[in-house]
């Protein structure tokens, strides 16, 4: 009985789908599609809305712990109601539009940003049966939608009629152009190896285990590990997170493109940033970390969406941890890093992945050769390019008088 309940296709696994079917089953046939889509939208909005709320709290708490202090703990139990207090406050706060601002664009920018950053969730497979829109070109769609976020940042910066915002907008555009390329190029190897642009099929391609406990996730191949790293770095930049948070750069540009936003519009920007973070992390999970797949056959009885959530949270923790630790880059260094380091590495990684898939048939000692070549193709360029990039800057020794 228990074994039957814990098969990969158990009741627990199909619970969300069953819930949807129960609701849509009550409706006439012609309404089913509409109601189903609506339900999915509501589920995504509610789920990620709640995740956003607690991510802000988690960020404040984790930052606090890293900095030897407790963090918010007075609002509700352990500060659990803090995000809702902030929400109530933001909702009721006066909305200020500067006198010289472009009112339409000023209003549109946060709306567009949230809308666009939500689009990506449509194609993410959250579980075995949980994908809102089954697209053959899902990866392409995801990145096309994601690109528009920086455009919204530019809109915000331009419409605010504020010099700091304008500078932030210029930075955002420069960053967009620089980091869209490595972000996309780091994904191409996955598409190449999996042979599909569909996210569900990419996840399916990572199913199964070697020796029963090493999953076939892309991150466990040399090119996949490199691709994952490159993707995460570019994702940090895409979601304007530290150390690439140049458009918002608090110590330089006040609050950058957000300088003139108050109340709920500001909260929307905040929300969009976290949505972007979640979407990119979700994509990284899908492409490199085996999506909803369990890490071991023994753990398959845990529903797939739980695995997806767990992996997502680990990546988000990484985002927060990096924010607590690193200083910010300068704009020219940011671009240098993108063009002279990330782009060459992603291109080499593409070749590496191509070689990997061509030599898929090699066995025995040849398998070792295959691994050695692939690993050196990752490590050698990394070291060489890294050395060139940081040439001239090293810790110094000092003389004393």
């Amino acid at each position, binding site marked *: 009985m228990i074994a039957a309940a814990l098969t990969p296709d158990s009741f627990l696994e199909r619970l969300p789908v069953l819930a949807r079917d129960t609701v849509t089953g009550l409706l006439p046939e012609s309404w089913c599609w509409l109601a189903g889509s609506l339900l999915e939208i509501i589920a995504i909005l509610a789920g990620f809305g709640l995740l956003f709320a607690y991510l802000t709290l988690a960020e*404040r708490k984790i930052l*606090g712990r890293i*900095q*030897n*202090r*407790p*963090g*918010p*703990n*007075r*609002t509700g139990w352990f*500060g659990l*109601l*803090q995000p*809702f*207090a*902030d*929400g*109530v*406050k*933001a*909702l*009721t*706060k*006066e*909305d*200020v539009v500067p006198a010289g601002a472009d009112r339409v664009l000023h209003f549109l920018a946060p709306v567009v940003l949230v809308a666009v950053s939500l689009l990506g969730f449509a194609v993410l497979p959250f579980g075995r049966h949980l994908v809102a829109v089954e697209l053959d070109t899902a990866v392409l769609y995801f990145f096309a939608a994601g690109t528009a976020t920086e455009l919204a940042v530019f809109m915000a910066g331009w419409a605010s009629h504020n010099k700091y915002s304008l500078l932030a907008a210029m930075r955002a555009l420069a960053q967009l152009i620089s980091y869209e390329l490595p972000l996309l190029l780091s994904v191409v190897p996955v598409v190449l190896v999996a042979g599909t642009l569909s996210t569900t099929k990419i996840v399916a391609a990572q199913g199964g285990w070697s020796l029963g406990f090493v999953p076939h996730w892309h991150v466990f191949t040399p090119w996949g590990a490199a691709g994952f790293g490159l993707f995460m770095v570019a994702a940090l930049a895409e979601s304007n997170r530290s150390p690439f948070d140049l458009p918002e750069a*608090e110590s330089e540009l*006040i*609050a950058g493109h*957000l*300088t*003139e*936003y*108050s*109340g709920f519009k*500001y909260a929307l920007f905040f929300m969009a940033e976290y949505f972007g973070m979640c979407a990119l992390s979700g994509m990284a999970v899908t492409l490199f970390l085996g999506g909803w797949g369990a890490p071991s056959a023994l753990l398959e009885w845990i529903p797939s969406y739980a695995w997806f959530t767990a992996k997502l949270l680990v990546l988000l923790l990484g985002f927060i941890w990096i924010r607590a630790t690193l200083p910010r880059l300068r704009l020219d260094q940011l671009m240098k890093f993108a063009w002279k380091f990330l782009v060459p590495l992603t291109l080499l990684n593409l070749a590496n992945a191509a070689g990997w898939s061509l030599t898929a048939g090699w066995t025995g000692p040849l398998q070792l050769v295959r691994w050695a070549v692939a690993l050196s193709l990752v490590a050698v360029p990394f070291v060489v390019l890294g050395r060139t990039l940081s040439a001239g800057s090293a810790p110094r020794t000092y003389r004393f008088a």
Partner: protein
Amino acid sequence: MSDPTPTNPGITETERDELRRHGILLTGLEELYNWGRSHSVWPLNFGLACCAIEMIAASMAKFDIARFGSEVFRPSPRQADLLIVSGTVTKKMAPQVVRLWNQMPEPKYCIAMGACAISGGPFKQGYNVLKGIDRFIPVDIYIPGCPPRPEALLHGLVQLQEKIRNQAIAGPDAPRHLQAEGDCNCPIPECGAHDIEPAQNGALWPKPPELVRPTKS
């Protein structure tokens, strides 16, 4: 003699507390609104002088203003709720402080931190020192000290939260921004040839009457 302001006939305070003890939360719009804004007071990242260091210290590990949900020091006045006037306001700086106050969206609060912000403090006799920021903007909480300890600032913040929680959102005691004819902006003084003009905001700080000095008789 009937009470001019009838209490809410539905439920009394003791009954509500009784219910709360049993795990039933009853709340109204007013309470929710006040709860939200009192637990999410984001200060402006704005330091003037010595007190600013203690303000920073209050946000640091040992004192941690984050416990009260206030560690989000926003650099832009548009997103801030609380202006902590932390230090001496000079006459050259006064127009900028008032401008920052005007740039903050309602509901907004002001804490005058330290003797200088309250009255000019030890520098009161200075020609370029404003004798108290309350001459230009409405102050909610005064924190004495030179500089006040970080604990004093935290106490001030808790007092402010309490003040917000107990605010009625309708009627004559309603906050400034909820009153029909409330003007939330303060006129910005200008730096003139010898002094700032005007020397005070007449609506907030009526010129004290001509005092007659007491004499020893």
